[in-house]
């Protein structure tokens, strides 16, 4: 006989009984503490159910409220009974009614026999290693906490606030260095009795009665005074979520639990019949001497916490709807916006698709319809090409598209004639790469067969729209990757900008662009610009175009016709 078990029980008595039997049947004495809040009737029934077991004792009952002293008092009472009544016990294992031994108790006993002087208690110095559950780290020890955080939150918060303002700072009893860690430990008789029989125990108890969550710090701190060999980890597998609530294990965790090689796990859902049926389990091996290795479960818990705290970037759904001011992760993946390129180049979309390997759409925000790749009527995620549906919630449209296509970069054309609702959203989105050839909207007007008066009016309107967009793109709050050229700059030297963009987004590794998109014929464009000016509409976003009609040739970028005076 070497291991004694303290069992803290407050609910699910059928399972608690089952667990007590598992321990007792393996020859471990068990001391049970039942929460004083449990009715006398339930307590008597529970006690009666276990009356056939010789080495099971019940200790004095205390009222246990989460985060309060009662849990420590309960542990102390149970430990005192254990030490007084069972002389053979060398290790005392603190456990609860919702803890379940995963491996045969003999394996635990062998493990402890091989480490007879070791205290297994997670105990981290609060000053050096701030504890995982944020807030109130140092202050747990230096303020007073007479109110329950769970039941009297308002009073709790009020008093903490008041004490902070008054500058309350309790002095720790001499020699104590605050340590914290998992509530579930396994201590040697030597260490545990030293803690319980310390002549200064009354002082320590008085101090810890006003500490917040003392069950995570009382034994963890005091063990440091007496233990000769602390192994700072818990033998009980127990994970917490971001609110400090324990993770619960269900039947579908069976394989994970089995592979963890942990001796005891908490907390088990009381109705997880399969787990209670299977464990403790020896994995079909003769003797398993492996130490606990809960890394898979650690990962599971870490993922869950990450999902709850940061979630999936760019996802908007029923239980994740970031505030408009929440700036990180506007969209799910990088995408590119091209303004003016398809005006200047006749085959820009197909060229970009072939050169970069990305999905290239037309004007997604065109007024009459959504121009999906190949002008599909429906696209990924069953997005409709209806402009009305899109304009009903343009933000959802864009974030949905990017979410639905994650893994494949999306590129789309944009222009002053399109719905401008997402200008700010895109400009503030680090995933957006926005390239603008300003003034290129003049090209379709130049090619159009409209009356000049209409052209003039459209040009003025589009210039105004584009100027608004450029103003957004030049604001100090932008996070997108933005490049802006005037049309004259771009026409002058188109190769390098195209090269830079394709290098940045392309999926194929390549050195130099082997072919360029076909630039539209600009013969007479200079005169067109001059005509606009003559009509009093000054197209300042285009840059300088001389009246002299000369066709630029992007294929031979060394020629710079527009620099000729």
């Amino acid at each position, binding site marked *: 006989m070497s291991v004694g078990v303290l069992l803290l029980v407050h609910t699910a008595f059928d399972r608690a009984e089952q667990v007590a039997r598992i321990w007792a049947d393996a020859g471990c004495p068990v001391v049970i503490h039942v929460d004083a809040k449990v009715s006398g009737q339930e307590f008597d029934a529970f006690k009666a159910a276990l009356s056939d077991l010789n080495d099971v004792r019940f200790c004095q009952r205390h009222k246990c409220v989460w985060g309060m002293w009662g849990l420590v008092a309960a542990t102390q009472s149970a430990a005192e009974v254990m030490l007084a009544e069972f002389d053979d016990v060398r290790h005392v294992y603190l456990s609860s009614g919702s803890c379940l031994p995963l491996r045969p108790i003999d394996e635990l006993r062998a493990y402890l026999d091989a480490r007879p002087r070791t205290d297994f208690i997670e105990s981290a110095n609060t000053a050096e290693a701030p504890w995982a559950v944020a807030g109130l780290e140092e202050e747990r020890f230096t303020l007073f906490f007479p109110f329950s955080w769970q039941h009297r939150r308002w009073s709790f918060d009020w008093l903490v606030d008041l004490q902070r303002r008054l500058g309350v700072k309790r002095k720790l009893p001499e020699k104590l260095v605050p340590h914290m860690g998992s509530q579930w430990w396994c201590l040697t008789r030597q260490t545990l009795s030293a803690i319980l029989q310390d002549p200064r125990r009354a002082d320590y108890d008085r101090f810890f009665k006003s500490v917040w969550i003392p069950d995570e710090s009382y034994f963890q701190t005091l063990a440091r005074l007496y233990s000769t060999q602390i192994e700072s980890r818990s033998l009980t597998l127990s994970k917490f979520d971001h609110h400090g609530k324990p993770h619960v294990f269900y039947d579908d965790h069976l394989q994970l639990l089995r592979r963890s090689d942990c001796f005891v796990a908490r907390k088990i859902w009381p109705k997880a019949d399969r787990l209670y049926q299977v464990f403790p389990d020896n994995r079909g091996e003769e003797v398993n001497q492996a130490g606990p290795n809960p890394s898979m479960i650690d990962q599971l818990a870490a993922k869950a916490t990450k999902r709850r705290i*940061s979630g999936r970037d760019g996802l908007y759904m029923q239980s994740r709807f970031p505030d408009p001011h929440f700036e990180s992760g506007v969209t799910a993946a990088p995408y590119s916006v091209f303004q003016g390129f398809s005006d200047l180049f006749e085959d820009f979309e197909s060229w970009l698709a072939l050169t970069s390997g990305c999905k290239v759409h037309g004007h997604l925000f065109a007024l009459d319809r959504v121009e999906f790749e190949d002008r599909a009527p429906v696209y990924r995620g069953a997005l409709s090409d*209806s402009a009305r549906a899109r304009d*009903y919630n343009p933000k959802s449209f864009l974030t949905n598209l990017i979410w639905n296509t994650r893994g494949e970069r999306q590129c789309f054309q944009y222009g002053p004639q399109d719905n401008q609702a997402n200008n700010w959203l895109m400009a503030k989105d680090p995933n957006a790469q926005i390239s603008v050839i300003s003034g290129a909207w003049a090209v379709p007007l130049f090619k159009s067969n409209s009356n000049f008066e209409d052209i003039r009016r459209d040009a003025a309107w589009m210039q105004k729209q584009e100027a608004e967009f450029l103003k957004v793109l030049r604001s100090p709050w932008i996070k997108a990757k933005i490049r802006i050229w005037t049309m004259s700059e771009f026409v002058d030297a188109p190769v390098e900008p195209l090269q830079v963009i394709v290098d940045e987004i392309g999926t194929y590794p390549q050195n130099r662009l082997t072919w360029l998109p076909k630039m539209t014929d600009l013969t007479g464009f200079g005169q067109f610009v001059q005509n606009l000016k003559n009509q009093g509409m000054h197209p300042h976003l285009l840059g300088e175009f001389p009246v002299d009609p000369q066709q630029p040739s992007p294929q031979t970028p060394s020629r710079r016709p527009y620099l000729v005076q």
Partner: protein
Amino acid sequence: MGLWSTYKLRLRRKRYLLRARRKARQLTSVQDHTAQIKPGDTLLVCTLYNEAIRMPYFLRYYRDLGIDHFLIIDNDSDDGVMDHLEGQPDISVWHTAGSYKAARFGVDWMNALQRRYCHGHWTLVVDPDEFFIYPFCDSRPIQALTDWLDAANQRSFPAMLLDMYPKGHLTDQAYQSGQDPLEIAQWFDPGNYTISTNPQLGNLWIQGGPRARVFFEDVPKNAPALNKTPLVKWDRSYAYASSTHSLVPRGLNKVYEEWGGEKTSGILLHTKFLDTFTEKAKEEAARNQHYAGGAEYAAYAKALKDHPELWCEWSEKYINWRQLEILGLMSKGSWA
């Protein structure tokens, strides 16, 4: 939120509760097994009209999920629905010939029953064509979820309505009583949902899916709301405001995270679109008992004539909850 608006919401809640009490007089108990309800039982509340064909599978599905007692309001069905309910110890039935519309689309009746029988119970409110799924629903009964919600001090749980539909014409495959409707309506729209917030009650307003895509393409604003909060640890002071889309007090609607994280959520698989739907749409359009003057059903009746297929190239075939989790339609949150 100012004192005045808080007070107005309180009045609104009181008004709903008063309405519920008034409309409760329209309900006559047909079969009362509510004495069987034990503390801690999970309850289901449902209003139905001529849905007998769906009952066998519906009851089996929810019994398997772990529902302990069904509270059913029969809005004057004439298709023999009682044959499926009569004598079942876990089902209580009320009958009413009252107007569905005047009872705010059944909400007043349900609020009344919930106030009376569901206080302190986790209560699921669904229609006969809605199937509730949640993370791990294939391995954990609904009590696992509600126990976890209790431990997390969470009083309500969201489950967006996901419209399911068959490939091909709705009338191509005939639904048989007892059959899993998902065998026919296997497809859904994976990523075309639009979301905005309702500043008054704090709930999200979600629209989209095949109904918005096909029936309401030109008037997307009128597309039906898909956000729902069907599972609530009921208290007699609570009331559903508009169907199960929103509740008062408004804190119950705060089922989403605003600062980046994901809360846990489920889905209501909505199997309205079976061969029975064409008939139902005509019937309901004539009955004119639905929201917005039955405009929804009028739109269906009209569109179904010339736009027979909901399926499209980018429809997704339903596999399980994990698929919906990956698609981002629901979330495990911190439940692992």
